[in-house]
């Protein structure tokens, strides 16, 4: 290999010459991070904006309704004369939790099973086909799911359940929210399980383990943090789900859990009021902010929980 000396000089010296342009890029080096910092700060302002929006109105609400009643009263019935109104958030919270619980009972086993099937049993081809299809399931607008719950699932349940079921109930939207969440849990869990190195599966298989034993005793524990994270995300999604419960869950808040009866969730309440005729400035108007704030706190707690859990269950590999 012979090197052309003159050319060598030229590149090295060319680089030397361009040194001056570096001072200009030095400016970029200083400015760019600041710009990105501003981007990052916007997310904080978003949260501040939410808290500010919710809090100002929430304060007004609590100037009219005592916070003690809000927490301790088990009934929620604002649409009546102010003196008769009940503002016990528990009724809405129970509705939300009931729907969420039902959704999870549906979504976790089915989603997880689908995830295990896709990641441990299905061929790459099958996976490539089914996964996007499931993602479509996640993309179907929620109104569609709402009517699906009301006009398909509820009548079906009515036939199945002895003693029937109310046209509005917690069960049907719960199940449908669950169905809506299945792809999310399946997809995220599958991602997490897919991220478990194949070498681990091979390790277990080489010991004579069946696929099932590999899935349950090796892959699942290894992917647990991701799987649990998908559950938590699913729960957040169920808590925040609005249209399905609005359409199929009814609007009768109650703290008593009876899944065949009508309920109301926090989100459904917000929709009910913001779609309705409530006069601006009325207590009801302010109540949606208080409910929104509660919802915000709920999701905040769920998220912190999620982070805690995924840190706790992270199996290092």
């Amino acid at each position: 290999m012979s090197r052309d000396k003159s050319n060598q000089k030229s590149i090295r010296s060319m680089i030397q010459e361009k040194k001056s342009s570096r001072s200009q890029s030095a400016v970029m080096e200083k400015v760019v991070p600041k710009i990105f910092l501003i981007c990052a700060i916007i997310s904080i302002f978003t949260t501040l904006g939410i808290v500010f929006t919710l809090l100002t109105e929430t304060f007004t609400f609590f100037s009219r309704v005592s916070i003690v009643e809000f927490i301790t009263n088990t009934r929620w019935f604002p649409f009546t004369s102010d003196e008769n109104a009940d503002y016990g958030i528990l009724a809405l919270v129970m509705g939300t939790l009931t729907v969420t619980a039902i959704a999870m009972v549906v979504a976790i086993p089915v989603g997880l099973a689908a995830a295990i099937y896709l990641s441990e049993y299905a061929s790459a081809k099958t996976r490539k086909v089914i996964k996007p299809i499931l993602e479509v399931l996640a993309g179907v607008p929620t109104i569609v799911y709402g009517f699906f719950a009301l006009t398909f699932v509820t009548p079906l349940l009515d036939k199945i359940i002895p003693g029937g079921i109310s046209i509005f109930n917690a069960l049907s939207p719960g199940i449908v929210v669950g169905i809506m969440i299945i792809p999310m849990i399946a997809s995220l869990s599958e991602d997490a399980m897919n991220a478990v190195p194949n070498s681990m599966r091979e390790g277990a298989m080489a010991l004579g383990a069946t696929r099932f034993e590999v899935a349950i005793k090796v892959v699942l524990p290894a992917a647990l943090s991701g799987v649990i994270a998908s559950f938590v995300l699913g729960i957040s999604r169920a808590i925040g789900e609005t249209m399905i419960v609005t359409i199929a869950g009814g609007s009768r808040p109650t703290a008593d859990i009876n899944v065949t009866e009508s309920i109301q969730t926090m989100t459904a309440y917000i929709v009910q009021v913001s779609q309705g005729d409530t006069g601006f400035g009325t207590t009801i108007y302010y109540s949606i902010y208080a409910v929104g704030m509660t919802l915000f706190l709920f999701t905040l707690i769920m998220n912190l929980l999620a982070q805690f859990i995924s840190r706790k269950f992270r199996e290092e590999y």
Partner: protein
Amino acid sequence: MDITINKQMVQKDKKNQEFTPVFNINNLNLWYGQDHALKDIKFDIPEKQVTAIIGPSGCGKSTFIKTLNRMVEMVPIVRMSGEIVYRDKNIFDPKYGVEELRTQVGMVFQKPNPFPKSIYDNVAYGPRIHGIKNKKVLDEVVEKSLRGAAIWDEVKDRLNENAYGLSGGQQQRLCIARCLAIEPDVILMDEPTSALDPISTLKVEELVQELKKDYSIVIVTHNMQQAARISDRTAFFLNGEVVEYTDTSTLFSNPSDKRTEDYITGRFG
């Protein structure tokens, strides 16, 4: 030490053509789709010896070793023909389940792949899936396997810690212990030291030589020196064919095939 020992050593190196085989492979052919990865392999694997497989990248070493415990079937496009007999049983016989085969024929992989569990649970995994629940028996198995893998002293005080806290070399020996725990007959190793530093490599090599007292070992290695150091017999694979398969001493001091010579002396390309 007597002169006879020396003679034996040299003698053994010179001709150990006669041995009890654990595996008889006959006319084995394997395709990945259209890709003919193993061609007419004829191969006998001796009992309680170390058999090394060397050859350039992509020559079919891993493929070959993985056919022995049928792990190769995890690749969907694989097709095979020919016969592999493990101790008088045809391993492809549907009556002879792959799980059972793999219980007899353990495997250690290129990258240490402990489960993200405690050291104890790693070793106990095999016995457990095979239905052993008795804590005392498990304890015993775990200790014996870890001792067998020459890692007991290093980990005995931290059996409940996560296996990923161990160094690479320790992890690999743990994987060997995990494999020993189901008391296999044959142990397959696919480049077990290629991810390890030289010292850990040496330790694993020593261990392999220790293990051959009780197990029949087949080891794939990129490292010719390693094959030379630790094996009794060596096979040189090229493009899916067995070019030469003989005792290691002969292969490395006086190979009979030009291609083997070229490969081991680094004249290949």
